[in-house]
């Protein structure tokens, strides 16, 4: 997008958005060159919460990196657990018992709902609506309680293990999950859609704002709801199924409008689809052990391994290089929002400040995951 003619003069100023700014959800900094309220150039500056997880991975054993994974995307921590478990299981050839796979899917999907709810809450906060935030937190709290029951922690779960999960789920968890799904289904139409989705102010605010074309998504490598909001039918759970996802009947919501509203709708529909997956998984939950046979000390064969999972924000890839040692030789984390954010600069050019922030909110940024 080129800068409109009326903006092509030199009365610009630089607005430093962040690293401590309410809209950047953490410590992202965006250097905006502005002309009045129009953005001439937007340049995200990263690294304010960089912790060098890739080096930390090289320094410890495979198992010792597991707690770190949850600290990157603290909103969908279990998917990061899952991604790391999958790539190591792939490399070391570890089998996972079926019950553990089901439990993984249930917890990861619950976590996905929690992540989308929190995104929704934070997005509405970006748009100045504070009340929906607390309604969403009320629901999210239920999920967090459920997950605390099985994982022992509330945010940075370290639940998955190579070859299974840390702890079996009990009847109370199953009953609680069913109750939660019933409750969320009851609250969704009224507190989420009637109050917010159909609200004319919100519609006017995010419809036709933040246009990201499918081609832009491809060139920038944007995945997840951002790509699906641009009409790209791409969900790793369907396209290259992992775990036991092929056994469930669910849809991948795709919207063609390419605007913030489309991304919003994708996420709202994904909540429903995740609930469907959880229900099916609970129905089909097989009995059996939750931990498979895994050697205490992992020494995967030397080689190159790649594994991808679908997190709430898009495709998370682990590029693992092993040299036959008990430490990962090299781990590269392909985090979804790193790529999703990289298109911000191009799209935000020529936008109004308020629209750009609404667009940024619709990208669903989790800064620790970008900076790793």
């Amino acid at each position: 997008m080129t800068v409109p003619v009326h903006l092509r003069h030199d009365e610009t100023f630089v607005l430093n958005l962040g690293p401590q700014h309410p809209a950047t959800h953490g410590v992202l900094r965006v250097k905006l060159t502005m002309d009045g309220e129009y953005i001439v150039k937007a340049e995200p500056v990263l690294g304010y919460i960089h912790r060098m997880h890739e080096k930390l991975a090289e320094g410890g054993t495979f198992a010792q990196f597991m707690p770190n994974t949850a600290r990157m995307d603290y909103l969908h921590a279990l998917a990061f657990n899952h991604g790391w478990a999958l790539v190591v299981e792939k490399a070391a050839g570890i089998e996972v018992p079926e019950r553990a796979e089901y439990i993984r899917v249930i917890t990861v999907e619950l976590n996905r709902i929690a992540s989308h709810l929190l995104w929704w809450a934070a997005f509405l906060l970006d748009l100045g609506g504070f009340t929906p935030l607390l309604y969403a937190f009320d629901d999210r709290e239920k999920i967090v309680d459920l997950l605390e029951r099985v994982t022992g922690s509330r945010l940075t779960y370290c639940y998955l293990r190579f070859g299974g999960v840390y702890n079996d789920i009990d009847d109370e968890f199953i009953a609680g999950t069913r109750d939660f799904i019933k409750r969320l289904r009851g609250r969704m139409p009224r507190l989420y859609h009637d109050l917010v989705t159909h609200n004319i102010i919100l519609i006017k605010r995010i419809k036709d704002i933040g246009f990201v074309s499918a081609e832009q998504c491809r060139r920038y490598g944007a995945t997840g709801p951002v790509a699906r909001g641009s009409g790209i039918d791409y969900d790793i759970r369907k396209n290259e199924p992992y775990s036991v996802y092929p056994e469930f009947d669910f849809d991948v919501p795709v919207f063609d409008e390419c605007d913030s509203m489309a991304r919003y709708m994708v996420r709202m529909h994904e909540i429903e689809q995740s609930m469907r997956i959880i229900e099916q998984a609970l129905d089909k939950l097989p009995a059996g052990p939750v931990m498979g046979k895994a050697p205490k000390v992992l020494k995967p064969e030397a080689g190159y391994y790649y594994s991808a999972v679908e997190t709430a924000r898009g495709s998370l890839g682990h590029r693992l290089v092993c040299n036959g040692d008990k430490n990962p030789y090299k781990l590269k984390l392909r985090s979804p929002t790193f790529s999703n954010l990289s298109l911000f600069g191009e799209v935000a050019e020529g936008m109004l400040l308020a629209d750009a922030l609404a667009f940024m909110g619709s990208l669903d940024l989790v800064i620790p995951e970008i900076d790793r």
Partner: protein
Amino acid sequence: MSGYWSDIVTGGKSLVTGLAITAREFFRPVVTEQYPWEVPTMTPLFRGHIELIGNEETGEPNCVVCGMCQRACPSVCISLDGKKNEGGKGKVLTRYILDFTKCSLCGSCVESCNFNALRFSREYNLASFDKNDFIMDLMQRLEDQNRCKR
């Protein structure tokens, strides 16, 4: 032009619906818990910092100083020492220091322990002005617990 009128009508309706929803919520009971006065129930799996498990009878730590927890810890926050057991075989624990400032509560240590010597405490009031409060002597803690039990 039709968009203009339908915007006004549907928009107005959506605004009124919004007000009706918040009005209904206004009269419904609160859902929050007032923390210091009400304490939520803790799940059985709650992960506090770790603590040593004492023997049922003697109260001595179950630990045999194998060092598995130390090796499993990704953040190097456990340091322990033992000495040769006089009279018996194996080793006895003499020092067990947990540097809780580094701990990420992953639970690897508890999982790696084969001798039922470690567990998560139920301590959640962990706030202090001094960093040194979190360099915990778990032997001392176990002794205190034993004294309380007696």
